Every structure is written in structure tokens, then in C-alpha cells.
């Protein structure tokens, strides 16, 4: 469990980092290192060069404004979790961050690093999808913004190009009056989700659902919006039957095969439960 030989560079600007990415296709960006370094130690990853971005000024920010939370590439999970402005703007981030591994890992790991790692069972990619967020990338041909739905392609695969670097993530603020919930099940505290469901919904004056977003991780090859369940809930008065139907519909999205932690049948059963509980909790919080 020792990494193979690699070069290390610590650029001082985003432009320099992008230039280094362009000149070496085997290079990888090092931010908090909480996934990459173990992968290197197990020789599952053998980058030719590590581009350490922690000395680049201006990447550690967390700013609230224009209806969104902007999280810089070096902002640590724990900083986002404890940020009161973030919790006020969209409390679903804090709710989910409490499930991201353990505090010592959150102290070093970065939100943007987790998005780029794009584990299909990870919490923060799902939150980006749930909130309808996006990432801002810098590349040798300039920058672009990629919507969450387009960013996550497959387990540990994103639409970031090899010469691009994600510099910031954008999480939209919670809509006024919306309720939210994040429900996850793991066998041990802090593990990757066997399944998790997130929900943001608003209700109209009559109490029916005005808008609803449902998202999931751990159940597929990437974080998902649950369109079929959202459709069932749109306009619903949130009867037990509707909520159950939403949970059952969400199960169709479960494509992850059975593994040592969950049989396929159990994961579906579990996921239906989590979706129901997420909807119920979000509904109870909505004004």
C-alpha cells in the first residue's frame, strides 16, 4: 500500500494548473486527497503527476448571493457544513454533509473534490443534482458552466475534460417556503450510502405540492433525479397513497446490482422507504 512513483507540482494560479493538466494527460488534481491518496496507496490510481491546488489563491471561498451558494475548489466539507450562511441559504447541504464520512475526513476533504470524484453513492454529487446546481470549470480554451445533470456521467466519471479544472460549485438556495429532507441508510455511520434520497418541495396555499425535486444516490451508476416520483407528487395533496406510490415509482430507478452490503431486492425496499420518509419530512417542513 505504497503509491508508485509520481511527480508533484504546486501551481500558484488556475491558469498554471490548467496548463499543467494540458501538458500531461496522466496528471491528476490533488485537493483534500481523501479519496485520491488512498486510491494511490492501493495503486488503484497511479497519476504521473499530482497538481496540488491548495496554494492557489482564491479557491477556498464560500459565498452566498444571487440566489446561490458558491463553493470554491479548496473549501473543505467541514467549512461548508459549519457555515451559517450556507445553512440559512439551503439547509439541505448541512443535512447531507453530516453524512459525509467522518469529521477528520470532512476537515480535509473538499466539496468540489467529492463532486469531481463522482462516486455514485456519494452525498454531495446528489445534492448538486437535487438542488439543480452546476459547476464552473476553467480550461485551456476558457471557462464554462456545466449543469449538474450534464456533469455526472457515470460512477467516477464526469463530463470535465482532461484539460479542465473545476474551480467552483454552485448550489441554488432553497426556494422560499420550501421544505427539505435528506434520508440516508448506511450500515455504519459515515459509510457511503447504500441508498439515499433527498427532497425539496414547496406547497401551495391549499397544501398541495407546488414544486418538488427528488434525487438519489447509491442506487444507480450516478446521482439521479427521480422524475417518475416527482410527477406523481406534482400537485399531490400528499396522501399516504401518493407518497407510497412515489416511493414505489422511485424504485424503478434502482439499477445498482446486488453487492455485499445490499441485495438488489433489499436496496429497492430500502430506497422506497427512504423516498417516502424524505417526502414526508420535507412536506412537514414546507410552509
Amino acid at each position: 500500500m505504497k503509491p508508485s512513483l509520481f511527480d508533484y507540482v504546486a501551481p500558484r494560479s488556475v491558469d498554471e494548473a490548467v496548463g499543467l493538466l494540458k501538458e500531461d494527460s496522466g496528471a491528476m488534481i490533488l485537493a483534500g486527497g481523501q479519496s485520491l491518496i488512498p486510491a494511490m496507496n492501493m495503486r488503484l490510481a497511479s497519476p504521473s503527476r499530482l497538481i496540488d491546488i491548495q496554494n492557489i489563491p482564491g479557491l477556498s471561498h464560500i459565498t452566498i448571493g444571487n440566489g446561490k451558494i458558491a463553493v470554491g475548489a479548496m473549501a473543505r466539507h467541514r467549512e461548508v457544513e459549519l457555515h451559517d450562511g450556507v445553512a440559512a441559504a439551503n439547509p439541505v447541504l448541512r443535512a447531507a454533509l453530516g453524512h459525509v464520512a467522518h469529521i477528520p475526513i470532512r476537515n480535509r476533504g473538499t466539496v468540489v473534490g467529492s463532486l469531481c470524484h463522482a462516486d455514485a453513492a456519494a452525498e454531495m454529487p446528489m445534492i448538486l443534482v437535487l438542488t439543480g446546481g452546476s459547476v464552473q470549470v476553467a480550461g485551456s480554451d476558457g471557462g464554462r458552466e456545466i449543469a449538474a445533470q450534464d456533469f455526472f456521467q457515470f460512477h467516477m466519471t464526469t463530463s470535465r475534460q482532461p484539460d479542465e479544472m473545476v474551480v467552483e460549485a454552485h448550489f441554488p438556495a432553497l426556494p422560499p417556503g420550501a421544505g427539505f429532507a435528506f434520508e440516508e441508510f448506511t450500515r455504519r455511520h459515515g459509510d457511503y450510502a447504500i441508498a439515499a434520497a433527498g427532497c425539496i418541495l414547496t406547497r401551495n396555499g391549499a397544501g398541495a405540492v407546488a414544486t418538488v425535486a427528488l434525487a438519489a444516490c447509491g442506487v444507480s451508476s450516478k446521482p439521479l433525479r427521480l422524475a417518475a416520483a416527482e410527477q406523481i407528487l406534482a400537485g399531490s395533496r400528499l396522501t399516504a397513497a401518493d407518497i407510497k406510490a412515489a416511493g414505489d415509482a422511485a424504485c424503478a430507478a434502482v439499477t445498482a446490482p446486488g453487492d455485499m452490503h445490499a441485495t438488489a431486492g433489499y436496496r429497492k425496499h430500502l430506497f422506497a422507504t427512504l423516498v417516502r420518509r424524505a417526502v414526508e419530512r420535507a412536506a412537514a417542513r414546507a410552509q
Partner: protein
Amino acid sequence: MSTRLFGARIKRNIDPQLLRGEGSFIDDIPLAQALHVAFVRSPFARARINSIDISAAVAHPGVAAVYTCDNVGALDIEMPLLIPHSSMHDARTQRPLARDDVYYVGQTVAMIVAVDRYTAEDAAALVDVDYDPRDVEVDLEKAILDGAPLVHDTHEQNIAAHFVQVSGYPDSAIAQAEHVTKIRVQVDRSTAAPMECRAVAAQFDEVTGELTVWDGTQAPISVRGGLASIFKLDEDKVRVIAPNVGGGFGQKVLLFYPDELLVPMAAMQLGRPVKYIEDRRENFVGSSQERTQIHFMELYAKKTGEVIALRDSFLHDTGAFIPYGIAVAQVASTSIAGPYRIPNIWVEFKAIYTPTVPVTPYRGCGRPQACFAIERAMDQLADELGLDRFEIRRRNLIADHEFPYDREGLIFADGLKVSLDSGQYHKALAMMEERLDAPSFASAQAKARAEGKHLGLGLAFYVEGTGLGPYEGGHVRIHPITGKVYVNTGLTSQGQGHDTVFAQIAADQLGVKPEDVILVEGDTKAFDWGVATFASRAAVVSGNAIHKSAMIVRRKALQAAANMLEADVGDVELKDGAAWVKGTDRKVPLSAVATATNPLRYAFNEAAQAATQFAPASRHDGPSLDEGEHPGLEATDYYSPPCATWAYGVHGALIEVDPELCSVTIRKYVCIHDCGNMINPMIVEGQVMGGIAQGLGGAMYERIEFDETGNMLNANFVDFLVPYATEIPDVEILHLETPSPLNALGVKGVGEAGCIAVGAVVASGVEDALKALGGGKFRHTPITPSMIHAALDAA
């Protein structure tokens, strides 16, 4: 003695050092110019090796040597069968480096020695091994079928051992039975996962010819014996040191692992210190595991619930080799009747070779499996007869007046009889009933159910044969300069707190503070008679040996002090580091007594002046030491137990199952246990608590997963789920103290106790919680959410 230290809650001497990071583990030992080892390991569960090409690895910069079976000389051998037994036929053991065949994924094939571990791993990747993979069967029940692929060509079947033991007259008892309960239970494979993986470092001094080996072992004296024998060295030229060791749990009692031989060999050949620090992946694929057993048990009972006979036939997975003999299966088979009278027993096991990591004892060593079988069977019997689970146990527990209770015909893992020596089983059960408020549980359960909650009561009783022989020694000496007490024994600690409890034992005899007792163990230069740390035996065997030695030193000190104080020996007492004339302020420090008992020529300090040859106090005619007399205050004695002493306990829990999440939450966990007289209740509680945590791992989380080709799928802490502190509930521990009649201290072992009953408790509670939902039976651990889902799905 002012206050008795035996029984006191004294903080562990070693903790400040360890908590400050000042421990000295093997990787902390500075060895100048040390070389580092990495292994090439088999990627196949069973394969023929056609060829091994090491040329690229040899040529790799920084590589000092590459070894295969062809250049290890005397080490191209099958390693020792540690515990021979007649039930095994042609027992197979591993070679340090594979020759011709590999038998499990992870088996060592070649060894790289290089300037650092990074380089060694790079070079290991350059070794080209041409394998011819063979068919494998990793499923225990399929592996014994005719036509199953064989692990060893030397055997016609994959059966490593077959053994039957009988106590009483099971056949005639069975004929008189009015009810029979039959169940199949299974416990899956786990691993000890010590926080510090295994480690070995070696240094050879060419001038003195001394080989020093630092080995994270539980058995340094045995390792030294093996090294001296295999390398044909004088035993006094081999020193084995087990320094601070970060947990063993049985995994480190096996000798030899390949590295324990190959690293010293390389150090001798290369003339530089060599170090092997096992990493976590290697610990999973290369160091012993345990637990897989499948029991088919039958209880033959009267209508009253009185069990009159037991039949159990079980399969025991021994992995690819059986270096530790049948110990695990033998402990399981002799613990099979638990705390119950059951006078007639027929128990059979087959140890099965599977192409997987070898199996040797892991904390519990067969006891958790036996406990799981008998306790699940007792619950089942109660259910079938319409009896309460406490009641069925009450009707079968051995009564206080029946001790010692012998199971004639059963031979324990020490080769001695099974004799449950003492206990208060009924009292323990009654205490549990009270702590869980069992009589009112049914109504609490019904009330919870009305609120949509599913509560269950889990219950299991266990017994544990502890303190096995053959023997250990204790050496006690009072230092003439400092007056501190030095204690040595031959076994060694992996964090249990020996230095504290042994200090309490010695300090009681010698009237010193426990922090003034300095224990040095795990070093063959300090003390080299003894066996090892295993089978919950250190407190019993070394503890009593140290007690005996300390009593001898006490007698010597009192006699010498009486002479110095010109008092009658009966009027002298030892306290506060000095000998006192009782009821007076006349005293002499122990250091001075120790000095005075050592006839001197040179007065190196004030106390020594009194011991020199012209001093008035030492004036005498004839020799300074009479015939048979020894200098100083020092003694060595040994303790050899007549047979194991049996500890026991009962665990109970209130468990909630969420049928939607299929999750298990332990609302209350109570442990009532009895390990005889407690030397230090705080350390006992630590041992029990740690055992329970490890038991919960086996009950709910930990399972080594092999795919059908024998590849381990979860050789890491991401997927092998050792529970975190967040998964461990609060545990209420209550003590009973029934002194063991077998030893002077009245102690029984406690190291393994905590883990034994947990699987049975959780299964019992989950089954109870889901009864109303038709959840069926839980007879297989670990109990996972998927398992609960399947059970509810089938309801």
C-alpha cells in the same frame, strides 16, 4: 499491607505513554540502514506455478535481493504443525515461499528486499509468475461433496481432520427423549483486524553472532525456539522481542508466518537490518482468520424441557492449511453444551480445507460458534415446548452445588478434562431477568408494537474454558538501588494491561506502590521460560506464577528485615516501600534490605556500606552466602494449572428492528459475567467491553467475502465493516465473583469473554422482535439488513 491492591480499580500504567504516542512499536524501532520487504502474492486461490521470472525485479534499482523457494535454502520447507493431533491425517502446512503450487489468494510466492517499501512494491510488480489456475470450491458444504475440486492432491477429500467425542451415554438417553429439537446454524468468517498489523524486524550482529528479532507476536519464546531450530543457532544467540504490540486477538499467536522466518534469514544473509511491516491489505489476505462453522444440532429433551442428550455435527473451515491443528474446532466441540447439565453428548466435527486464508484462533476460538449453536437451539426448544427462554435455561443450568461439573470423555484444547469448576449460573440468570425487567417485557413489547415499533429481547449464556496450561513463570526481584520491584514473565501483552495487574499482584505481597513495579515481558533476554499469550490465560497462569514468586520474595524480605531491625519476623510488615516493626516508626527501606542481602566488597552507596565485608552488620564466620542461599531479594517460580478454569456469563439485550429499513438498534445491552476474583475491575470491564464490540462486529457487520474463484472482495476497511464506536451501544456490565478453586488467586480468564455470546444475543433479539411479522428464524451471523429483508419478504 495497608490497602489491598488486588481488586482495586487502578488506572493502567501503560496508558499515558501509549496515549501520548510514546509507545515503541516495531516500526518505531530505529534500525540504521534497514532494508524493507514486500511480497509477491498469489492472485489465484489454487494454481500450479509453471515458472517465476525474477530477472526484472533483481535488476530494479534499489533492490537488494529477490527470494523464491529456490534460493531460501533451509527455509524451503513446510512450516511446523504446531499442535499435532491424531484426528488429522497428513496435516498440511504452508511453505514460506510457494513451491510448485499456490493454495489461496495472498499466499507468498516471492520476497523482495529493497531500500524502502516503495521500491520493494515497485519491484514486486515486476516479478513475472506463470500460473496455471485450477478449479476451486470455496463453499464449505460443497467442498466435502464427491468430485469437489481438491485443495491438496495428497488428500482424496478436502477433510483435514475428523473427530468424535462422547460424554455419557447419548444413545440410550436419546431413546428416552420425549422431544427433539433440530437446528442448523452458521457463523461466517471474520478476522481479528488488529489496529497494528503484523510486523517483523531483524538484525544480525556478525561479531557476536547474535540474531535479534523484533516480532509483533503473542509467543516470543516459541518463536525463538523455532528460529534457533530452523537456523541451527544456539538459543542464547537468538533474542526475540515483542515490544508494544497493537492488538493480537489470537492472530499473532500463530507461528510461523512466512515473514517471521524470511526476514531474519534476509538480515543474516544481507548483513543489514531488515524490516517487514504488514499493510492492511496483506493482513486481510495473508494473516489468519476464523469463525466459519456450520452446526447441525439436535437436543433431546423431556417434556419438561430438561435436555438429556445433545448431538452436534459440525463443519469447520480451516482454510488452505491447518498449522494450528484442530484447536478451534476442539474448543467449539468441548464448549458445545454450554452452561447446561446435559449429561449425554455426542459431538463430531470435520475440519475442511478450502482454498482460502488459513484459519487459526481468533478471540473466542470456536466458543462463539458453540455458544451460537447451543443458545439458538435452547431458544428453539423453548419455543417448541411453549416455555419462556429464561425458564428453559433455569431447568437446565448446572446448580451451584453440582460444581465441579465434569464432562467425562471430553478432552479440552489443553489435552485435559472438561471440568466446569465453579459458578453461580442461576444467580447470574436471575440478575439478567431483573435487569431486563423480563417479566414485564411481553407487555412492553405489545405496547411498542401498537406504536409501530418492533422490540425483541435477546438472551444468551456462555461458558469459557480459560487459563490453559502448560505453565508460565514469574521472576520477581527487588532492586537494591531504587527499591523498585522488577517482574518478568514469559508471555507478552498486546495491550491488555499486564503491567498493571501483575504489578497489583506483586505490590500486594511486597508493600510497594503499583507504579513502582516494573514489568518486563515479551523479551527472551528478560525471561525465557514459558509459552504464550492465548486462551484468556495471562492473569491465571502468569498471574499465579508471579504471585508465588512474590510470596517467596516477601518471606525473604521479612526475614532479612527482621534481622536488620532486630525484631521478631512476625512483628515485621512490608508497606510503603519499607519494612516496618509493626506499630512503631522503626523501618528500613526495601532497597536497603535488598542491598543488605547481597554481600558486597565495594560500597557504591551509603546502604552498600552496611553490606561490605568489614561492616559490623555483615560480620560473620564462614562464607557470605550459606549453602543454598541466594543473594538479594529475588525469586522465580512457576504455575501450572491442573486444567482450565471456566468463566461464564449471560448477556441480554433489548433490540429494536425497523422492518422498513431492516435496521437493528440495540436499545439496552446488559452483560453479567463472572471471571472469578477480579484483579482490577476496570481492566476487566475494558476487556469485556472490547470483546462485546468485537462480538457485535461478528454479529452484525463483519464477514470476509470471497467470490466463487476464491478472491477476497473486501480486503479493506471500506467494505469489511469493523464497527465504529458509533455502532456500539452503551453496555451495562455487572460482576459476579465466584473464586476459582483451582488457583491461589481464585482468578479466571476474561480476555475472550465479551465476544462469545453476542451473536446469539442479537439473533435471539431480532427473531423475537420480528416474530409478530412472521420474520422466521435467525440462525446465521452476521445478521445483515439484506438478511432481515429476505426473512420479512418470505413471511
